[in-house]
Structures are given as structure tokens and as C-alpha cells.
């Protein structure tokens, strides 16, 4: 593992972890929601970035994690930490099933994007209709702060938990990137036929990638549920999360270790600024931050094809010269 690759990320997270000592609640809320998206985006990056399979439906995993944690606690009185573990496992399982169905049918590119979107929508409609998910009125997790319940009275403690989760996935991603599995992922992304010719089991590599990706994104969903203590189908399985994780990765740099984290923070930062700036002028206007998200996606594809990380590297190299 190259320390230069993970060090900036760990430093960034350490800075975020110290911030609660000085920053206001507004800043902490911003960091909490950004890091949840960052964690989910790290999951997307493993499949979309390293393995090159663009998913438009990562809400399927996020929602599964969130609902697993919430339903287990509310309906069965299961401990939240166990709920987190089950949520991650279920997310990975849903990933594996979607992958097994669509990769076996040789779907890629536009087709894979469409089918993941459809799976997420099916889950959303089902969660909205079923009884045990609380239907359209959603689920409320009982407030009972305590480490054993994965709830914290202070935002700072939750932020530390989130930052450590993001750091753990950062290390995992960096480890994968420098090992055989990572090389297989990149080989599949760059040229499936060539990878197969060299003896890479393409289907198995993709399945592992989507299961891993689903597990990480499901973890983000679990932590979302524990942080906000409320869920409904449009939050958990909504298209917003599918879109935000995708944009965060593209903006930060797909297939890079740090890209999703940097991208998520930048995306949310710009979104909040846009809301603030326009809010001053015209009062609250719905959808402004999303207009900015969409515009950033187009601009990133057009002008930063390898993401902010590559852009930053070019910049620092230019300055060093």
C-alpha cells in the first residue's frame, strides 16, 4: 500500500474529527450528511470506479442497509450493532443477487445502468407498500442514546464513528487497489475480453465487486438510519442517494482511493453554498442544490474527466515545478 495515497485522506478525516471541538452544530450536521454520502460513494466507487460498471441504482443497497437496521430494532428488538452487521450482509447479498442476474445476462453500459435503476425502483415501491417497512408513513427508531444502541447524545461522537468507518473503507480500498483483486477489477473495466483471455474470471470478479460495493453502501444506509432515526421508502430507496454517490465519485475521481470522499465533501459544500447564496436573495427555493449537483456532473465530465483528484495532482505538480 502506498502511504502517499491514503495519508492525505487520513489527515483530512483527522481534521474533520477534531472539528467538533470548535465548529458549530450547522457545520457538524453538514459534515455528518457529507460523510454518510462519502461512505456510500466509497461503495459505489468499488463497482463503478474500479470495476467500471456504472450503477444508477445504489439506493437499492443504501435502503436495504437502512431498513435492515431499523426493522430489526423496531420489530424484533435486535441490538443496533447486530442490525448494522446484518444490514451490511444483506446489502452485499442484494448486490450479489442483482449482479448474478444482470452480469449473467451480460448487461453492461447503458443496460446495466438501467437495470440497477429499475431494481432500486422496485424495492422502493415494495417498501412503500409493505406493512413491516411501515409503508408510506415510514419507520421511527426509538430514541435511546448509548454506545450499545449505536446512538449518541452528541453529534461529535457520531461524527467520530462515521469518520472511522470512512477511514476503514479508505484503507480497504487502498489495499484492494494494490492487490490481485484490484488488478482484476481494473482489467475487467478496461477490456473484458482481454481480461478473460489472461485468465481473469470476469463474472466472479464483477460479482465480488458488486457484493463488496453493496455492503459498504448498505453500511452508509445503516448509519443514516441511526443518525436520523427516521426512514421512509423515498429516503431509503430514493433516487437522490443513487445520484449523489455517483456524482460524488465522478466529481472526486472514479477509481481513485480518495475521490469519493473529496467528491462528497465538495459536492455538499457547493450545494450548501448555493442554497445559502440564493436563499439570501430569493428566499428558500426548492431544488437549487440539485441544479448545482447536475451542473457539476456535466462540468466534471466535460472538464475534469479524471476528477478533482487528478486535477489537484496536476495543480500541485505544477506548483512544485
Amino acid at each position, binding site marked *: 500500500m502506498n502511504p502517499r495515497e491514503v495519508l492525505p485522506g487520513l489527515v483530512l478525516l483527522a481534521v474533520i474529527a477534531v472539528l467538533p471541538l470548535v465548529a458549530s452544530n450547522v457545520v457538524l450536521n453538514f459534515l455528518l450528511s457529507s460523510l454518510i454520502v462519502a461512505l456510500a460513494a466509497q461503495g459505489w466507487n468499488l463497482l463503478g470506479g474500479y470495476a467500471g460498471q456504472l450503477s444508477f441504482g445504489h439506493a437499492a443497497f443504501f435502503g436495504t442497509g437502512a431498513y435492515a437496521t431499523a426493522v430489526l430494532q423496531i420489530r424484533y428488538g435486535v441490538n443496533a450493532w447486530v442490525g448494522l452487521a446484518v444490514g451490511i450482509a444483506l446489502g452485499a447479498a442484494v448486490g450479489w443477487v442483482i449482479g448474478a442476474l444482470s452480469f449473467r445476462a451480460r448487461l453492461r453500459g447503458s443496460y446495466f445502468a438501467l437495470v440497477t435503476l429499475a431494481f432500486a425502483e422496485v424495492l422502493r415501491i415494495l417498501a412503500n407498500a409493505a406493512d413491516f417497512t411501515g409503508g408510506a408513513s415510514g419507520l421511527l427508531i426509538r430514541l435511546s442514546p448509548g454506545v450499545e444502541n449505536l446512538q449518541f447524545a452528541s453529534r461529535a461522537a457520531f461524527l467520530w464513528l462515521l469518520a472511522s468507518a470512512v477511514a476503514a473503507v479508505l484503507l480497504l480500498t487502498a489495499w484492494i487497489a494494490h492487490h490481485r483483486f484490484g488488478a482484476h477489477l481494473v482489467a475487467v473495466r478496461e477490456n473484458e475480453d482481454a481480461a478473460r483471455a489472461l485468465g481473469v474470471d470476469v463474472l466472479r470478479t464483477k460479482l465480488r465487486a458488486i457484493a463488496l460495493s453493496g455492503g459498504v453502501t448498505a453500511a452508509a444506509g445503516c448509519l443514516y438510519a441511526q443518525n436520523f432515526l427516521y426512514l421512509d421508502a423515498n429516503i431509503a430507496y430514493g433516487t437522490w442517494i443513487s445520484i449523489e454517490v455517483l456524482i460524488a465519485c465522478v466529481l472526486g475521481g472514479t477509481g481513485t482511493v480518495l475521490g469519493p470522499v473529496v467528491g462528497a465533501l465538495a459536492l455538499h459544500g457547493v450545494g450548501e453554498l448555493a442554497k445559502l447564496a440564493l436563499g439570501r436573495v430569493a428566499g428558500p427555493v426548492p431544488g437549487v442544490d440539485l441544479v448545482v449537483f447536475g451542473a457539476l*456532473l456535466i462540468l466534471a465530465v466535460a472538464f475534469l474527466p479524471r476528477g478533482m483528484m487528478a486535477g489537484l495532482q496536476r495543480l500541485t505538480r505544477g506548483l512544485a515545478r
Partner: protein
Amino acid sequence: MPLELIAEAVANGLLAGAAYALVALGLTLVYGVLHIVNFAHGALLSVAMFAAWGLHAAFGLDPYTAILPLAVAFFGFGYALQRWVIGPASHGDDGNTLLVTLGLSIVIENALLALFRSDTRTLGGDAGFDVVEIGPMLLSRPRLIGFGVALVTAALLWALLALTDTGRAIRAVAKEKLGAQLCGIDPRHVYAVTFGLGCACLAVAACLLLPTFYVNPRVGNAFVLVAFTIVVLGGMGSIPGALVGGLFVGLVESLGGLLLGESLGQLGIFLIFILVLLLRPTGLFGARA
């Protein structure tokens, strides 16, 4: 169940299917030539519906009168969008085009939301309740007109592709881009023309839908996944496929709603979609594997 009820559901399904087919026609045309799924299609339909609604609200222009000018305007809009935004931004990479059209759809949908809020608007008046009696059935007049215009539009599109030089150029680029380029065809121009034609189809669809439908910033979404389903069902890029697929999906939705209730109808569309993608991704009329 009385036979007239079923007959009416079949007729209504076919009429609704014609509007779906028109939306799907634009999508399939763009896919057939550019080989990308245009994710902004639904958002562009919302724009077209707002435009048709705005023309009626501001100038009292009847939606049927607005078809021609709006189609021409949307052709230009689509041409510009592909030529100067989508094309240059995606550097000729299919994955990028997918992302750029996704970005466009997010921008358009939320800009409409910011401008018009989430209120639902209709044309007002009672045009939507105007019915025609055919045998034992009562059919909505705007939907009958829509059915006719949709068929005419599909025929015109087919004639354009089959008989004109522009159509020949479009088909050439769709089949063999490099070869077409060597014959002096500018693929960027052809891509933009195709995208413009797709948008013109949307403008026609919007004018036909407006009398019986509502307008809000997310209205296009209701159609876009249905349109994707139709395109996948009919075979990506196939015009007869889009027509038959559209009518079929309209029929399934109408009969499904009659037999199973409305809420499950939505699920049925997605399930058809996933099943077709998994089992027969080339669709019923698709040629390429």
C-alpha cells in the same frame, strides 16, 4: 366482467399506448443512432409540456395548433443541446454521454421545480372530458386525436429515414460511423439532427398529452421509465418496435389496472422491464446482440 368493459379497457389502453409510443419513438431513434440511452428524455418531455401549457396560458394557443411550431422549436433546441452541450462534454465516450444526459435531467427537472414549484397544472376547461361514442364504447376525443397524430408522426419519421438524404445519412452514421465520415457526412451534425428529431417527437407528444394530463416538474418521470420499458421491449433503435411496444405496454397497463388495481400496475411495468432486460435484452424487434 361485462365484455363492453374489457373492450373499453382495450381501446383506452391502445389510445394511451399511442402517447407512450410517441415518447418512446424519440428515445429509440436517439439510441439507434448515438447508441446511448438519453436519460434527459423525461426531463425534456416535462419542458415540452410546460412549453405547451405556457403557450396556452399566455396566448390562449390551442395545444393542437401548437404542435407544429413547438415541434420545430424543439428540433432546434435538441439540435443545439446535442451539438454544443452533450457532444463536446462527453468527448465521444458512451459512458460519459450517459452521465452528461443524467446531469442534464437533474438540472432541468430541478430548474423547473425552482421556477414553477411542485404545483400541478392542467389546461382547465372540459376538453379532457369530451367523449366520442363508438358502438357501445365511450372514448375520449383528445385521446383519439392523439392516437391518429401519433401514427401519422411515426409514419412521417419512417418516411424521413427511408426516403430522404438526411434519413440516409442518419442510417449511415448509425450503421458505420467511420464509413459515413469518409463519405463526407459530418457525424456531429447527424447526431445533433437525430437528437433534434427525438426532441421534436417529445414536443408532439407533449401537445397530445396536455388536454388529458397534468403538468408538473416531475411529470416526465412518469413516462420515461415506461418509455425505457417500451424501447427495451421493442428493441433499442427499432421504430416499429417502439410503436408495437408502446401499444402493448398501454394495453398491459390498462388491463392490469382493470384486473389487479392501479397500485400494482406500476410494479408490473418495472417487472416487465427487468425481465426483458435479463431474458431478451435485444427486445422483440432488435437486431444486434
